[in-house]
């Protein structure tokens, strides 16, 4: 299994964090909060599509709501593969940063 890209990592973490409320609007806001940069919906959805195709995340279709003009939400949840990949990413990051002191780049 290939290591996650940074963007995939951010997305999957956002999904994990949002738990039951992980759908388009919330995910985008979460990602933008974390990165501090604009994220277009186009990019978001194509990335989410890829994650589902790689089986890191699964889609479930929600109930239609009035605020959305009668459209359904698409909820994303972390799959076991996704969790595994995230754990690996976490380990990798930890190993990478293990012996680097905080002030190294100041």
């Amino acid at each position, binding site marked *: 299994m290939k290591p996650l890209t940074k963007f995939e990592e951010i997305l999957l973490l956002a999904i994990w964090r949002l738990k039951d409320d992980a*759908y*388009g*609007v919330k995910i*985008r806001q979460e990602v933008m909060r974390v990165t501090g940069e604009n994220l*277009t*919906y*186009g990019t978001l*959805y194509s990335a989410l*599509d890829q994650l589902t195709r790689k089986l890191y995340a699964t889609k479930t279709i929600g109930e239609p*709501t009035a*605020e*959305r*003009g009668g*459209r*359904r*939400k*698409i909820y994303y949840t972390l799959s076991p593969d996704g969790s595994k990949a995230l754990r690996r990413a976490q380990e990798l990051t930890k190993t990478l940063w293990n012996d680097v002191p905080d002030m190294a780049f100041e």
Partner: protein
Amino acid sequence: MMKRRLHCTSPPWLAVKLLRAFLDEVTSWGLLGDLEEESREIYLRHNRFFARCWYWLRTAEIVLPAIKVAISWRFFMFIHILRFMGRRMRRQKGFSSLNLFGLALGLACCMLIITFVQHELSYDRHHQNFDRIYRVGTDLDFGGGSSGPLAISNYPIGTTLKERYPVVEAAARLRRAFHSVMVTSDEHEFMEEYGFFADNDVFKVFTIPLQYGDPETALSGTGMVAISRSMADKYFGDTDALNQVLTIDNSEEYIVTAVFEDVPNTSHVHFDMLFSFETLLQAMPEQTSRWVGDFGNYSYLLLQTGIDPADIEAEIPGLVQEHLADLLKAVNGRIDMFLTPLADIHLRAQLTAEIGTQGRIEYVYLFSVIAAFILILACINYMNLSTARATRRLKEIGLRKVMGSSRHALMKQILAESLGFSLLATLIALVIVPLSLPLFQQLAGRTLIFSPFTGFMPLIIIAIVGTSGILAGIYPSLVISRWTPVQLFHGISGRRSRNYFRDTLVILQFTVSIALMIAAGLVGQQLHYLRNTELGFDKEQVIILPIQGRLNDDLAAVKAELISYPGIISTGATSQIPGGGTRRNAFLPEGFELSQNNMMAAISVEPDYLTTMGLQLLEGETFRYDRGGRSTEYIINETAMNQIGWDKAVAKSLRELDGQGNENRIIGVIKDYHFESLHNVILPLVLEYNPDHFSNLAIRIQGGQVRNVIEYLEAMWPDIAPEDPFTYSFLDDRINQMYGDEARMSSIFKFFTGLAMLIAVLGLLGLAAYAAEQRIKEIGIRKVLGASVGRLIIMMSKDAVLWSVIANVLAWPLAWYGMGRWLEEFPYRAPISSTVFILSGLGALAIALLTVVTQVMKAAQANPASILRSE
């Protein structure tokens, strides 16, 4: 809060549409929902405008990159395809130029024909009210048979209709004024052909833009003339033409009251001068009310919008009865008048005594069919050559497939190439067309203007490019793209199955070419027949002079002078040169009821005319000078005698039903001769001796003396008619000119046959070259094993022979049927000879063989060692 939320903004529909177009189904509703949810929140927090802006911004973020990607990839693909095309064309110069040239030729041909068809269909469309203009035509019968529908009518019909029925807005008569006439201004003097007397209403009925003058009054008095702009320039140059004087025939003076824009050449009638009709009526006031006796006018009516011409037509019989009831009853005759729509005059009406030259709708159809045929031939060629050639690029296509190109993409690529190719061919055609236009104009007998950028032409050109490109590309694209990569790579050496589709196309091409060849041959034969049939008189070595000047005043003296010249054998004056129009009238033979009269043609001749023309007298005697002019004697032809039912006509008498009613004695019967063109059967004919009607002098000259006689005549002409220029013609030329239509048809067929054959040969050439190249190894091996060059050529050209034979079998009945229909129109026709068929068939076979053999020769003569070495 709740309320505000409910009628909250719906997202901009355009943005939604855009997003839907660029996203797949599931994503789009998920995403649209997200956008709507968020924009709603923004709306609640700020305002509607803000929300909309936000929505559009998000949309743009998604859509713009998508568009960019889509365009840039397509653009790269396009450039890529062009580059491949260019490379291939450079590598296969011969093939590509054959292919391109064939297609360009076909397209050029098509454009020429469309130009012609457009021209033919645009006749008289320049008149604003062209759909409301009608012309009154006549069909006469004074008991002796119908005259057939004529374009002409009498004096009063138009004006009477206008007076009686207010729905007739305007009525204008045109009447040919002078045949060919000398027109003089202060400084210039020219012969003019196109003059008409016209009512002032002519400016109301037709759209004739006036440069100078008042359309209300320009032709409303006597002695007025309106002239065309080019004529005004010719006679008066820069000076104002208005109120200048033109002298006609050195006698009558007319004041120029208007200058009109030149009549476009898509008008059924051409005129440079319009003389006021009043002038004519002043000279002959009784004409206004003459309902019978002179049918020499062209009466045009302008009806009010929405009027059914049949309603007007229905009123005419009443008018005729009102004026002519007694006469018609007496002769048991009828005068029918009918309305011809202006739009039909040029192509469809086909009336006798038409005002100008006509076209024929059949020719328009025929041309269109030929154009379609040639276009199809050219496309077939392209199709054939590119499928054949495609086998050379199987590797390329195989590789594309392996690299993941879908069938769809390949089809698109091949179609795009084909379209690009036809675009290139069109560009070449656009160069060919103006270059070949003069030749084609001659063939079609029309002045055509090719303007690729006006009217429907650009649309048509685009349509041609599109259809030919798709037509030519669709088959290769379907076939080649279907093959699997394995087939494709294998196919390079292994594919040897017969391609029946390609064979069929070649056969079709040859069928069309052979049918056209046969048609050309048969038209040529008929033309030859028309020109060389025994006419009943000797048409060679006869010069025709118009009766002018002293020939009019003192014919006998001039004739004596002429005959004294050694080169001149005899001379004779007549009212009609064979092929010209004749007077028709009803004649009542002695001993018959008034109702049993016969419609006959009447010609006035001098006693000498019969010998000059070589007419044969069957019985009786000819006219005699000593019995003087206006004699009371007739000579009739055989047909007249037979139709009346007499065994012997001499000493019997005939009466012309013209109101004067002289009983004239028949003194002789002549053998039938074709005094009209061979398009018509020989009619009953009456010859009379009436010098008043003489219009031409026929001069028979000795063989080899033509030049001397003409020089002599020219030298003495100032003495005969000092005021008229010297004009002469040869009888045989005049007779040949009558078959101009057939001559044109013949050259058109030759032209298109040549083209079709050329295109077919180009195609075959390409295929043969391809076949020879593909089987080069086979040929090499056969040679090594002892096959002779001759045997190899036979082997390779078997197909071509087979194709030609099948094409002949198909083309013969086709041509036989079609040309049979065409020939049916001629009362006198050349028999359909089998030689034409056989020669055309053999010709096509020979051409096909020659083409194939030249290509195969190279392969068959090559040294097998050099062919087989590389394996």
